């Protein structure tokens, strides 16, 4: 074939141009569909475990801090009811402690609301805290075995059969709601409840909002324990006529560390 430098350069330039634009177009198409896939995947994830489309039921709780300040025995009653119901062990060493619901000071529960001149009640008295059953739970996102997961009714549950004890969830939870069983808990359970399993060494456990009672139409054990004074109110946050929504409408409530975007389902009347 007879060709000269000029024609060769023309063909080379044109084919380079065609090649580049061609790959650009192909890239665009590929990434375009890739984005489409990713976003659809995201929306699916959100529907499963996030603040996406609202489901019919999202369980939540309102805790009246004032009532717990007034009666220090109240918190003890709630903690005792929970820990007895779920065979939560009581270890003598604080490092091994397992907690589902426990009492703490205001400044520890609400580090986003510091106050240089704290009122005396907040400084000295204690309020109950537990798993917040977040609408956007970071523990569920990090769990490699899906041992912790969100039920459709908003309760963040644990499947101890699947827990491998990696403790990613403990690192992810900003509320310290999870405890790890460093030792066999069996010998340290004070009163064994024969209707509920215990846990084994090497799994993480936490408050389950009494899912076994709630999904059977009953109230959580802590709510039941302080039912006389209604210091804890449990209900469906997605039902505008529920008791809990009525309280949330009437009272000013706060959530723990709202800036983290975990969307807790536990509200506190200050």
């Amino acid at each position, binding site marked *: 074939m007879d060709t000269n430098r000029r024609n060769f350069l023309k063909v080379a330039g044109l084919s380079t141009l065609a090649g580049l634009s061609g790959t650009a177009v192909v890239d665009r198409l590929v990434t375009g569909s890739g984005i489409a896939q990713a976003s659809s995947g995201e929306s699916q994830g959100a529907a499963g475990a996030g603040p996406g489309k609202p489901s019919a039921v999202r369980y939540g709780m309102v805790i009246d801090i004032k009532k717990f300040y007034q009666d220090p025995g109240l918190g003890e009653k709630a903690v005792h009811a929970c820990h007895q119901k779920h*065979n939560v062990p009581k270890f003598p060493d604080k490092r091994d402690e397992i907690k589902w619901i426990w009492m703490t000071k205001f400044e520890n529960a609400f580090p986003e609301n510091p106050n240089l001149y704290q009122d005396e009640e907040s400084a000295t008295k204690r309020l109950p805290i537990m798993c917040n059953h977040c609408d956007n739970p970071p523990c569920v996102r990090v769990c490699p075995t899906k041992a912790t*997961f969100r*039920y*459709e*009714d908003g309760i963040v*549950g644990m*499947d*101890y*059969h699947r827990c491998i004890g990696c403790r990613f969830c403990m690192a992810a939870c900003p509320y310290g709601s999870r405890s790890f069983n460093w030792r066999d808990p069996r010998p340290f359970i004070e009163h*064994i409840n*024969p*209707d*509920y*399993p*215990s*846990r*084994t060494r090497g799994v993480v456990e936490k408050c389950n909002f009494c*899912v*076994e009672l709630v*999904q*059977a139409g009953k109230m959580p054990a802590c709510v039941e324990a302080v039912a006389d004074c209604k210091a804890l109110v449990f209900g469906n946050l997605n039902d505008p006529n529920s008791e809990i929504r009525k309280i949330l409408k009437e009272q000013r409530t706060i959530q723990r560390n709202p800036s983290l975007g975990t969307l807790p389902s536990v509200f506190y009347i200050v």
Partner: protein
Amino acid sequence: MYDSGKIIPGLIIFVLFITIPIWYNRGGGSEPPKPVLPKDAKACVLPAAEIRAEHMKLLNVWRDEVLRDGKRGTVTVDGKQYPKSLMLNCMKCHTNMKQFCDTCHTYASVRPYCWDCHLAPVE
């Protein structure tokens, strides 16, 4: 054959050695287990042969339905309702883990980890 005086006794000793399990357990051996059945309950959620072969699968299905899907209803067999639960159903009739569960599990040399968490009824 060279050295047949050593090889043949050697082979006999070898064959005897690798068949130890067969002749050691001959006669005595181990008898099939006899789990103690509950006296007052006559019916189970499945026929005996089926539950004997499939109980571990059934328990896994129940576990996933109850714990993960939140389907905490009951199963109805012959008009009677049973909760889908090891502790709240199975162990209410089979009240003795050692005389029921463990007899076969030990015989078959399986070590289910159910009892690491689930509580056997107090004997």
